[in-house]
């Protein structure tokens, strides 16, 4: 069905511009009222959620006319879903789904972005979204971790591409492993057998490549008899929990982000965060852990003819309500010495770090611009550091912050609290 299935949704757009701003009750003043990086950076309405669906509706009606400008609009979007949350406060319509389908159509029609093609070529060759230097499981050498592909484990820790290969990020994997070891969890990694979750390929519009990766992971999980997956990467979390479910590949697999899992371990008394970590922080919600991390809702139905845009059976929209917001905050608050101050744009209306949708690859300047806006907001809280829960956010925010502000992943603080 592709984009066509969202024709009714796209026709519903009333061009109110709510998609450009955080939900209006939450606007705290002049500053930090914007929610969509793309319209904030490029200004033409076409770059907003509403603009995108209006273009989609027009092209379904009048035929697809590709131009450089159209592709600029399509690929300068982090697919962060903030537009949908702000729209869906008031409206019943899909926003991000048609935008995603539009991008998939572009890829299927061969209207791709060269930088994204390059990233996908790497994925096809090495099973990684980042250049694969060395072996994927090399970071774990000497840690005596179980190989989940060969040994029986209760939990598979899916490390992710960036954390596995980026020397600067490998410390996050080591911290996560140490935390799981401390809680005496029978876990393992897939090591060199691990492959990309496919989530970022999906955001970029390469659905076939995503499905290829998803099927590989589903097969590995099935073969190893894994029932629970823990990720440290928000992209991986969304892929395993939401996207695999959307495409019928998740089965009964339980998926936790490490922040949820630590929260659970603390609640169950299996992990104590006893050491003091004196630091004032603000928390950045990764899009794919927060608003886009809420469960997929399977639905099929038909519009009821008549005056309203309603369906039989009723359609329940994913409005960002049930994302993972509290667990990371509870974990931070339970670390002695950590002082958490919130930014203006948080939880379901959080500002994206800039790394999503392939923007890191296709337009690094835009990714950095987006992150810089977030760093400024973080600084406005008076916090010493930003804490987040995704290596892509850590990397993008760190690049923008330079030496002006520290950026940590939540596992780094937890690691310090358990030492």
């Amino acid at each position, binding site marked *: 069905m592709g984009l066509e299935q969202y024709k009714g949704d796209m*026709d519903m757009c009333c061009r109110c511009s709510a998609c450009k701003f955080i939900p209006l009750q939450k606007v705290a003043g002049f500053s930090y009222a914007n929610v969509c990086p793309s319209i904030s950076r490029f200004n033409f309405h*076409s770059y907003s959620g509403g603009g995108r669906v209006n273009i989609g509706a027009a092209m379904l009606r009048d035929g697809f006319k590709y131009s450089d400008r159209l592709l600029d609009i399509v690929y300068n979007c982090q697919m962060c879903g903030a537009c949908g949350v702000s729209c869906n406060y008031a409206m019943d319509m899909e926003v991000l789904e048609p935008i995603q389908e539009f991008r998939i159509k572009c890829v299927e029609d061969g209207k791709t972005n060269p930088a994204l093609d390059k990233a996908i070529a790497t994925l096809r060759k090495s099973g990684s979204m980042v250049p694969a230097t060395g072996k994927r499981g090399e970071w774990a050498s000497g840690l005596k971790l179980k190989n989940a592909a060969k040994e029986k484990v209760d939990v598979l820790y899916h490390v992710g591409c960036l954390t596995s290969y980026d020397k600067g990020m490998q410390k996050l994997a080591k911290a996560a492993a140490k935390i799981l070891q401390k809680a005496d969890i029978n876990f393992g990694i897939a090591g060199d057998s691990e492959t990309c979750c496919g989530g970022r390929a999906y955001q970029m519009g390469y659905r076939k490549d995503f499905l290829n990766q998803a099927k590989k992971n589903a097969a590995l999980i099935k073969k190893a008899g894994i029932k629970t997956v823990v990720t440290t990467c928000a992209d991986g979390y969304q892929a395993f929990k939401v996207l695999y479910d959307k495409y019928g590949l998740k089965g009964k697999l339980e998926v936790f982000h490490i922040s949820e899992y630590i929260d659970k371990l603390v609640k169950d008394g299996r992990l104590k965060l006893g050491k003091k970590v004196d630091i004032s922080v603000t928390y950045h919600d990764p899009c794919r852990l927060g608003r886009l991390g809420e469960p997929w809702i399977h639905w099929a139905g038909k519009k009821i003819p008549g005056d309203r845009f309603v369906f039989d059976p*009723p359609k329940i929209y994913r*409005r960002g309500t049930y994302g993972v917001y509290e667990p990371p905050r509870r974990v931070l608050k339970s670390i002695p010495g950590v002082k958490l101050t919130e930014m203006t744009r948080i939880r379901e209306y959080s500002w994206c770090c800039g790394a999503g949708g392939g923007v890191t690859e296709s337009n690094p300047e835009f990714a950095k611009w987006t992150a810089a806006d977030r760093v400024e907001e973080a600084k406005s809280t008076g916090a010493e550091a930003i804490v987040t829960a995704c290596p892509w956010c850590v990397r993008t925010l760190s690049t923008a912050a330079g030496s002006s502000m520290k950026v940590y992943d939540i596992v780094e603080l937890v690691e310090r609290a358990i030492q």
Partner: protein
Amino acid sequence: MALSKDIYSQFEDVVGEENICDDPVIMPSYHSTEFAAVILPKNTREVQSIVRLCNKHKLRFRPVCTGWSGMFQPGTLYLDLRRMNRIIEINEKNMYAVVEPYVISAQLQAELMKRGMHFNVKGAGTNCSAMLRGHGHLDQVASGDDRNHLAIEWVTPEGEIVRSGSLGSSNEWFSGDGPGPSIRSILTSAVPPGVTPGVFTKAAVKAYHWPGPLKFPVVGESPNYSLSEIPPNMMARYYSFPSVEKMWQAEIRLGENEICFELMGFNVAMVAANITTCNEQEEKVFKQMSKEVQGPGFFVIIAGNSAADYQYKKKVLEQIVRENDGKSLKSVEDPRTEGILLCQCIRISASIRETFRPGGAFSSIPVMGQRDLTIRWAVGAGKAKEPLIEKGLIVDDGGAFFGWGVEQGHLGKTEIFCKFDPQNPEAKAAVEAWNKEQSARAFKEKYFAMLMAPPSEIGPGLSNYHLWWDKIHKAIDPNGVSPSAGALV
């Protein structure tokens, strides 16, 4: 409709290549028109240069803020004012704010509340420009229409920069009428065309005393926002009455006693729309509330400056309601619902859930005039909706209309609309016919409606104002490059 390369580059020189685009691919995101180009000026000087170029090349232009919908002639240069988004000044002493066109009302309201002030957010919603003229939920205490615009900076259709009122003789924004040139009569208009040619680039917006908290304690995740507590000395209620006459008597007495922070003549369909998070829930709640009310009604917010002031206002309210046999809707007394409505009406102005969510479109007839007369007209217009509701062409809202007195007075706004699916041609045609018939009736019966008809049809009934307007328009826009009709939301 594209501009020639040479003309395009002249505009490009004004705003930079990043801020002008004539690729047809972006046009559907604006409106269904082939624009000559979309251009994004950053400041008054750029607007002036653009307007002068438009005159030089006899090119029509049209400035727009956040957007909603609009009618545009093909070949128009679309001025997207998005980059003009600064709050220039908030003057607490003289109680006004100076804003550029793309400051949205949500931003300004939040900034004003922090300073113990508020302004009248318009019915279009706080997603729209804070410069917008018109009416809204807070008309009782924060007036409406042109009275909230003080000094204005205006780029005329020929590209002159005119500063009205006090700004014309000093750098002060406190008055629209002087010392300095008062040109209020041509800067706004309550009847079609309803818009001034040229571009407003800055305006001072009047602020009012805000007796509530510095910010609302909003909790929960979207779309389930509510208040953690009802702010001190505030209350929201919905009252229904056994008849329209009783409702009107209560409204007029409440106005005379000057106790309401808001008095909005909603029916329960609009209450249901505001407090629910999806269409299905809205339908259900509307049906349930319809059984709870005894007839027409209104929504009221009381906001006391002190506990004693609050108690006084509450007592007066309850007495007036009682004397007119009014009944409070229990569902709204629930603090959760009460909190949602408080925030919706003061911080959002509610309009998207009320208007667009059900079917994607609405068609409205707004009437400004003596409330008892316009209510009488609206009852008839509501009756006329019934056959459309029965056929399933428009959303069942019980024939709803709404309205309120401005400045606690007898004069006020009354409005009625039909919500429908614009993809359904039968519904669209039926709604258009309803609008035309009811507008014609309003005009024929001398209700002074802001009608859909062209000025040439309305003018003869209103001292031939349209002939004067034509002369003014020709004088200030000799090249005919600026629109003489349409709203700039």
